[in-house]
């Protein structure tokens, strides 16, 4: 055998030798949940309690549209029982690669483990008429940032309870009790928000992206303009000039933006209008201390009220 045959044989052999080591997984009683965002992760943990293990792909301070489909995420999904995601094409830039890479039949569309949380949501901004990319990075199925409405938090919890109960019927009563407890905590928190909500209602604000549409619907704040001229399109000087006029006319005092955008542009607009830039975390873990969904909602509403 010649040198090159030996080299090729070694490469093939080394690969083949390691192949039988593949797929070593240990059976565990707990359901394994992987979620696309920290918000779904936290609600899943609230409902699943100690009967599940959960991980998430995106971080709360990361733009969920632009997560990289890293192979290490494939490993998380490979042995998962449930893949829960926001849907409405929020994860379209990376989810297909991960699901295809994971080769986990439990997570394929139509299976109980494939959980599109948007199917229990009343969706805003559903595309009408002719939708195309001249309108920016549109989501024709609707705005996917729906978790920033506590009613949708309850719906997601209900969906998780149903899903977990279907996959793990013996612990159905635990999931039901956990969901009820979560809902009660959310109800109690909501009662403490009333003074803040009263301050926010009707107040004009400018938002960077359409992430805050559901929060606006819930709080009654009035989004009079967006920093982005179209979804996903960075602001142009001409757009900002118009936006500054709009803010002066409407007396918008606050620019709400996510932590993953560059705030220099927002600061510029604020300097021209006397407005305040409010960097609000749109997701659990978006800033330190926001460890769960109820804390996120409480903090965002309180910060908004304080800024207005």
């Amino acid at each position: 055998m010649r040198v090159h045959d030996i080299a090729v044989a070694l490469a093939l052999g080394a690969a083949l030798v390691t192949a039988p080591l593949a797929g070593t997984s240990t059976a565990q009683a707990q359901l394994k949940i992987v979620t696309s965002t920290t918000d779904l992760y936290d609600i899943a943990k609230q409902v699943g309690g100690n009967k599940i293990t959960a991980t998430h792909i995106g971080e709360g301070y990361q733009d969920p549209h632009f997560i990289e489909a890293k192979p290490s995420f494939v490993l998380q999904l490979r042995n998962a029982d449930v893949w829960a995601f926001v849907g409405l094409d929020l994860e379209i830039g990376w989810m297909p690669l991960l699901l295809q890479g994971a080769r986990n039949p439990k997570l394929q569309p139509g299976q109980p483990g494939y959980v599109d949380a948007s199917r229990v949501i009343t969706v805003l901004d559903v595309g009408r008429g002719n939708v195309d990319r001249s309108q920016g990075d549109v989501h024709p199925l609707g705005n996917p940032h729906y978790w920033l409405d506590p009613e949708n938090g309850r719906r997601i919890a209900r969906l998780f309870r149903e899903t977990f109960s279907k996959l793990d019927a013996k612990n159905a009563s635990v999931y039901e009790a956990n969901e009820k407890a979560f809902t009660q905590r959310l109800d109690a928190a909501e009662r403490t928000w009333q003074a803040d909500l009263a301050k926010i209602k009707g107040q004009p604000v400018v938002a960077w992206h359409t992430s805050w549409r559901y929060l606006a619907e819930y709080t009654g704040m009035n989004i009079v303009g967006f920093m982005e001229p179209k979804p996903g399109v960075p602001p142009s000087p001409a757009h900002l000039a118009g936006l500054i006029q709009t803010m002066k006319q409407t007396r918008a005092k606050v620019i709400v933006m996510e932590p993953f955008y560059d705030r220099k542009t927002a600061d510029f607009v604020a300097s021209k209008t006397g407005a305040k830039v409010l960097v609000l975390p749109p997701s659990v873990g978006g800033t330190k201390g926001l460890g769960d969904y109820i804390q996120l909602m409480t903090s965002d509403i309180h910060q908004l009220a304080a800024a207005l």
Partner: protein
Amino acid sequence: MSGTSAHHARAYGIQAMLWGAFVTVVVASAPASAQRDTTRRDTTSRRTPSDSARIADSIAVVRELERLQREPRAENPGQQPQGPTNPRLLPDISAVGDLIGDLSPKGSTQEGGERFNVREVEVAVQAAVDPYFRGDVFLGISDLERISIEQAYLTAMALPWALEVRLGRYLMPVGKQNTTHRHDLHAIDYPYVIQRFFSDEGLKGTGIYASKIFAPFGFYQELILTAVDRFGEPTDGLVTIEPVNKKLSGLGYSARLRNYWDLSQASNIELSFSGITGKREQPVLGGDPTLGTPARQSVIGTDFTYRWRPLQQGLYKSFIVQAELMQQINEKDPTLELPSGVSPDGLLYGGPTRNFTGGYAFARYQLTRRGYLGARFDSFQDEAAEGSATNAVSGYLEFFPSEFSKLMVGYERYAPAEGSSTNRILLQATFALGPHKPHPF
């Protein structure tokens, strides 16, 4: 219609209208009734328990209706995503245009000599075939090659042990950049080592592809094995007495082992090893110039990629450095396979009789949200110059107006092993139509 029937119809219509008006009034007054019920609890206490239960039920229903009415979120309930988003089961159809400009000062360096060229339009049709398979078809359309099947493969989706198997034509999993569509590269062309060892358009193969992921050592590993009809495309103008793949040993076989580690949330590395072997036509000198003989050729290589992208500022900052090293290993003295009646006297093997090595190093830094600066150094032992090194240095400025379009300008200094150096100035514009595709990783 008879007169009696018409009369009955009119009477029925009037009746229906009256009932409709009555129902409308009742429904319209329901919230008000409910409001009264909720404020007169003391008066209802005299009713029987069954009446109270019925009324309580009604109140609950009305309250639920009121709550739903109060919800301003139901902007378009008729278009909820619960229904199918693709009721006609149409496949995803997309197209990518790849336009090239060549402003090199000493003339175009493109294959066809064009200054401006639609290098390729790729049309993709992709969908699940059934519960077991997914189908992906990529057709390439170019001025030079007309329509060609770039890739067309069936992927088995329901195999045990996390196996993935593909049947069809695909980009060969050999090396790192060869697995990327040319229009998705961070540079305008494939690295020279890929162009020279495989082809300008990379290496494709038709056959079976099997992949398995595993993590016995705690990090991601993937093994990909393929068996394809042959190694590379047939050599133009050469004829062998028998197909190079007549024997199974003449097919193309490849293996790739990927190893991936997260260094932190923001950075990761991949170190992979690849190899491919097969028989290819090589020229025979001293006789008919079209006469060829099969000879084994193999390519082994390793590739390394480091990526950095901070999670919070990932829209604006990223960095990638990548390098590949490949060696082409050639059969030195193959037995000439000649047609019957052709004497081997005076005939010599005209294929490569030594090995060649090549590689590249590439880096790309993100300048702004939409702008990137890249550079690449290429070097390979040139078969046409008896193995002397040909080098190239290039730089690229990429601008992404959106995820669906890219504009690039590139400069390259190409220093061949023999002859004078060349400066190349290249422009590229790509655009994508159709459904949002996953971002390549």
